[in-house]
């Protein structure tokens, strides 16, 4: 791996299951699926409902509000691309629509994050990539 490659953060490669989600992110929308059969929300998007295996799913845009379900302040990055960011927060976010996803809590003092804090989704632009990344900020 060249030096510049090693410093590049992993970029998601959208596939047939996830294209709507990642294209939505580029347009500032947090897209998720809700099952027409059982009514439950799911993250991440799939070709079927993981709750009931139903095949009819509708895409909806989330309101973009949630709470911190848990978090960790990372002091030792797993790969060099994140080394300059430490300490950074990796968190699990429970969205109001009833699903959980992982992201960073950005634009805040890492030590200030607590379980239960309300957050809102923002879309991060990263150097060298046209893919925007869903993240959250504290409200």
């Amino acid at each position, binding site marked *: 791996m060249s030096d510049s490659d090693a410093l590049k953060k992993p970029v998601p490669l959208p596939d047939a299951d996830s294209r709507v989600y990642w294209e939505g992110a580029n347009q500032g929308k947090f897209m998720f699926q809700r099952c027409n059969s059982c009514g439950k929300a799911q993250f991440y998007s799939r070709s079927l409902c993981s709750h009931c295996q139903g095949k009819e799913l509708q895409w909806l845009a989330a309101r973009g509000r949630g709470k911190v379900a848990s978090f960790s*302040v990372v002091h030792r990055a797993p790969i060099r691309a994140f080394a300059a960011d430490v300490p950074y927060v990796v968190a699990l976010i429970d969205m109001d629509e009833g699903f959980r996803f992982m992201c960073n809590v950005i634009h805040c003092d890492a030590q200030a994050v607590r*379980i239960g804090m309300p957050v809102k989704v923002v879309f991060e632009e990263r150097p060298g990539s046209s893919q925007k990344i869903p993240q959250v900020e504290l409200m």
Partner: protein
Amino acid sequence: MKSKAIISGVHDTKVGALPQSTCMSLHTEAGLGAIEDAGLKVSDVDGLLTAYSFTSPQLMLGSVFAEYVGLKPRVSASISMGGVTAGLLVAQAVALVESGKCRHVLCLTGDNRLTGLGEKVQAMLADVGHPQYEQPYGMSVPAAFAQAAQAYMHEFGMTHEHMAAVAVNQRANAAKHPNAHMKKPITMEDVGNSKMVASPLRMLDCCLVSDGGAAVIVSAGDAARDLPKTAVRILGVGEGYTHEHIFMSPSLVDFGCKDSAATALGEAGLKHADVDCAHVYDCFSSTLLICLESMGFYQRGEAGGAALSGEFAIDGRFPLNTNGGLLSYGSSGAAGGMFHVVEAVRQLRRECGERQVKDAEVAFAHTLGGIFSGHCSIVLGRI
């Protein structure tokens, strides 16, 4: 009653930094050691189950090993399920001997991760994260396990001191094992002063990276009478799975270990209180406390206090990870869990010297893979 399988032979290699070792040398030493320990010849082994290797990523690792040592098994498979694999090898071997397909199954693990990979190992481990939904966020394996630790502190009052007490106890146990990777005693202050990795986990809350290998031989129950050493019976085995990625886990405080332990104890016809010593996967100090409570060995919020008051010591009320565990004995990929199985067998054979748990009759071994994703519990009994 079906004929219960036994463990007829065990072996583990030296662990730590073994710069001369290779994946194959560790497999060979562990495998042949276990065969010898069981009083068998290589040609007696008719089943071979191996795990996987990071340093020597083979498509057919078992086949590579069989060719290398000149073994021609009738059944051969390699299972790749992360840290839970060691338990799964034993579980599958039990099914093979109890169905009559095999008589002696070699369950074999080993990897030279420390000297073979060095710093690269952290990046390889982080690859377990989902490529679209976790890796873009810089999730390390400690950060993933820390999500549960943080939730547990919030919900059930687990503290840094509780976790540190686990690490300190296991280092003291490792000091009593001639082969342990880390034997230098540590104090509560040492754990608290060690570098933060991913809050609340500090360096001494995290397992080691070691070179090493371990193997056990699972044999048909009636082979017990021919053995040179005390046979250990496999009384019950259970597995449990709830998710792969931590953000998909239905709970941050209960995992597949709840089912795997209940199944294994149920099959054995035993209760938690019947267990004389436990050997539970401890990739992080917090993981161990959370699993003990999820499995029902302790009530919610009580395992940490038990660690602090010394209950996990070799002469304590609940002797735990008597070899020092992944935190201090060693952690070599799938072999990490197999070290626990080997130690459980040695306890029941009363071979542990100053680590010996007095009158150990029933041992409980538990392996875990992924981020609390897959679990395997094994109940072992002295015949």
